[in-house]
């Protein structure tokens, strides 16, 4: 009864009414949102019993008591006119203040607006006394960022200071970050993948999409690969390039259709690829953490800064990150675009 697939029908009805010269919005209050009406009835039910704790299992408890024959039959079973029945079956002696729950909800709204305003005023107070925007002498410009900029090229081999920072100086953060993405991908798979259900959507067959997609797909893919490979030399890197790559994969899935895409790149293989890349990332970083912390040496040669093969592990790390991000984006797409049960 709650399914929304009657929507076109509903629109059609409105159109017919309009065509017959009636006001299409006349019974809008009723037809528009039956859920809302049901909810309001439910609120009145709770209200009349003064069950103000939203989190509790009041209704279930009531049903259990009913099953044991302690109280009157549950008003729900009588179908229509819930709130009327409830107010009759109310336990005598209880204080009944109508609309208390609704006033509580109003209180909640006012309280949230109040909290938001307090938050805004506090934060405004904070930002007005903070170091000024663009101030070259701000406290954040200190020996830490200076070393990233001045010695970064020498120490990491990366021209792009941000890449050098996230993949070498503060690499543990970035490993955590890739793990967040991996965890999210695994969670979404756990929530949305159904093992028995084949992914059998066809390509849209849209001529414009097909032709234009074919035209720009190679460019998108090439650009993604370029951004990943040049992560240590120019703006970009694994995360941004991986997103472009993921977009390319999604575009090709739109053109080819999921079933053909599933033959080219099975979802199992995508997961495996992600896992392998993350493992490779972990092993490389683990190696460099271990040797660095124990001062063993065994450094990876840095190469000449500016060349494509430079920066030690940076290039393979960027490739790993790029594949992880691209695969994760594509996984999200396939799972969210999957048909409903």
């Amino acid at each position, binding site marked *: 009864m709650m399914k929304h697939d009657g929507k076109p029908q509903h629109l059609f009805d409105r159109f017919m009414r309009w065509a017959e010269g009636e006001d299409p919005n006349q019974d809008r209050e009723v037809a528009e949102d039956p859920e809302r009406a049901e909810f309001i009835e439910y609120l009145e039910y709770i209200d009349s019993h003064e069950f103000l704790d939203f989190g509790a299992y009041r209704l279930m408890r009531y049903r259990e008591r009913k099953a044991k024959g302690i109280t009157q039959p549950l008003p729900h079973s009588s179908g229509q006119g819930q709130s009327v029945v409830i107010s009759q079956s109310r336990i005598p002696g209880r204080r009944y203040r109508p609309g208390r729950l609704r006033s509580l909800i109003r209180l909640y709204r006012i309280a949230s607006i109040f909290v938001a305003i307090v938050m805004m005023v506090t934060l405004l107070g904070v930002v007005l*006394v903070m170091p000024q925007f663009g101030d070259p002498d701000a406290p954040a410009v200190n020996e830490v960022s200076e070393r990233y900029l001045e010695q970064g090229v020498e120490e990491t081999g990366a021209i792009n200071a941000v890449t050098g920072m996230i993949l070498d100086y503060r690499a543990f953060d970035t490993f*955590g970050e890739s793990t967040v993405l991996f965890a999210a991908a*695994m*969670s979404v798979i756990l929530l949305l993948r159904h093992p028995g259900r084949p992914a059998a959507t066809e390509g849209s067959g849209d001529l414009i999409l097909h032709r234009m997609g074919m035209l720009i797909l190679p460019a998108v893919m090439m650009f993604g690969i370029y951004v990943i490979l040049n992560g240590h030399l120019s703006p970009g890197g694994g995360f941004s390039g991986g997103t472009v790559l993921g977009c390319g994969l999604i575009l090709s899935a739109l053109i080819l259709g999921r079933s053909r895409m599933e033959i080219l790149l099975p979802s199992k293989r995508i997961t495996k690829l992600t*896992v392998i890349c*993350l493992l490779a990332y972990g092993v490389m970083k683990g190696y*460099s953490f271990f040797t*660095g912390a124990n001062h063993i040496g065994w450094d990876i040669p840095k190469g000449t800064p500016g060349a494509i093969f430079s920066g030690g592990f940076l290039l393979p790390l960027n490739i790993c990150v790029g594949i992880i991000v691209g695969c994760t984006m594509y996984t999200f797409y396939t799972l969210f675009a999957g048909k409903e049960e």
Partner: protein
Amino acid sequence: MNFIQNIPFFSLFLILLSAIASPFLSQKNGALRLAQGVQLAVTLLSGWLLTELWQTGTSFTYQMGHFPAPWGNELKAGPLEALFAASFSLVMLLSFTGGTRDIQRDIRPERQGMFCLLMQLLYAALLAMVYTNDLFTAYVFIEIAAITACVAVVAKESGKSVVAAIRYLVFSCLGSGLVLLGISILYCVTGHLLMEDLGEIIAQLVSGGTYMVPLTAAALLMTLGLSIKSAQFPFHAWLPDAHASATTSASAILSGLVLKGYIVLLIKLIVRVFGDSMLISIYMDDLLFLLGLTGMLFASVAALRQEDVKRMVAYSSSAQISYIFLALGLGSRAGTAAACFQILAHAFTKPMIFVGAGALIRAGRGGHYWSDLRGAAWRDPMAGLAFTVGGLSLCGLPLLAGFSSKYGLAVAALAAEWQTMPALFGIAASSVLNATYYIPAILAIWGKRAEREQLLHHTVQDYQIAIVCFLVCNVILGMGVGPLFEVIYQGLELL
């Protein structure tokens, strides 16, 4: 460099890499067994680290990579961190072992491996929060914990658990958003993310009186965010549903460890970054104290009204978290030590109750309500014992963990200024309230024995081993107050 100093790094990478590699295991319970093996190994390693550090009385920093601290990431381990790591690993192992049968029953077989993977990531995130010396690393791992804990709630896949998970995720994201904002403000006024450097610069700023507004706001935002995530009283709305609808191991881990992980981070923030004097000057300690005091009374009253065993235990968790906040609010070293002890005591008690309750629910007819559980303890005496001992421990029966933690808290409260009387009153009232809901519950599960009630098992089950370990740990925590407080004080000195 001593080999032992590699243990924090090894434990983190062992857990992370083994978790990431676990999709390759094809055996039926492969991921589960691997997880347990890794947990056991990390427990042993951390125990070794703890004994070494305790005997030598040292702490050390471990530089992650080739660059020293303000530039690179860093881990820091002292006796307190090692103690937390060892006990968290042990609790994790025991919760996993204790809930194995519920995992197999509640979660679809093809998803059990994934569940274990995510739980291992959660475990790694907890350890990283314990060990890290860098605020931003802490934020990243807070987010890992948020995502994976949410999956722990949802893994059972009933409609209710999805609803609980989404509420949990809303609160969790709000909390981590506030933490991130606090970190950004701190970074803006200090230019550091490393806890020690932050501490130094904040001390300078406070003595110079500059940037007090941003510092106060950052401290408030981060405390607020972490208390939302650890279900401290006014923000506990998500907790009962999340716990009641999760599978047994997940409830045990959520209640016993995840909430504590954030509080360990909060303690590190208080001790390392802000420092007692700054927090006292902005009345943060009073705020924490009042939060804790109201929380322990209100959550206990709410627990009284629950019909569902897991919900009752969940509300009781919120009350116990409030004890920690109360102890932190005393603003003294003794208070912080009492908070640490309460973290340990609760970490060993609450999972035991959840494992016991899970087994009792299995032994009953699968119902969560008191009416279903009447007499269930006779069918599974070991589970009944776990629930009984856990409940009594939280009520404060001497020789059990809960009593010792209340004792430590009371001793710390005696040395406080105005907080003494309210704190003692709060402890007394909350203990009485604990007793009013745990003792009827215990009486109910040991209630009248029907004719045909029989023992469920005649062989030893793995969850029974877990329960025995929990019981032993509880008694050790109850009896070994002296040495444990010694370790905690030593650890706080070196934190």
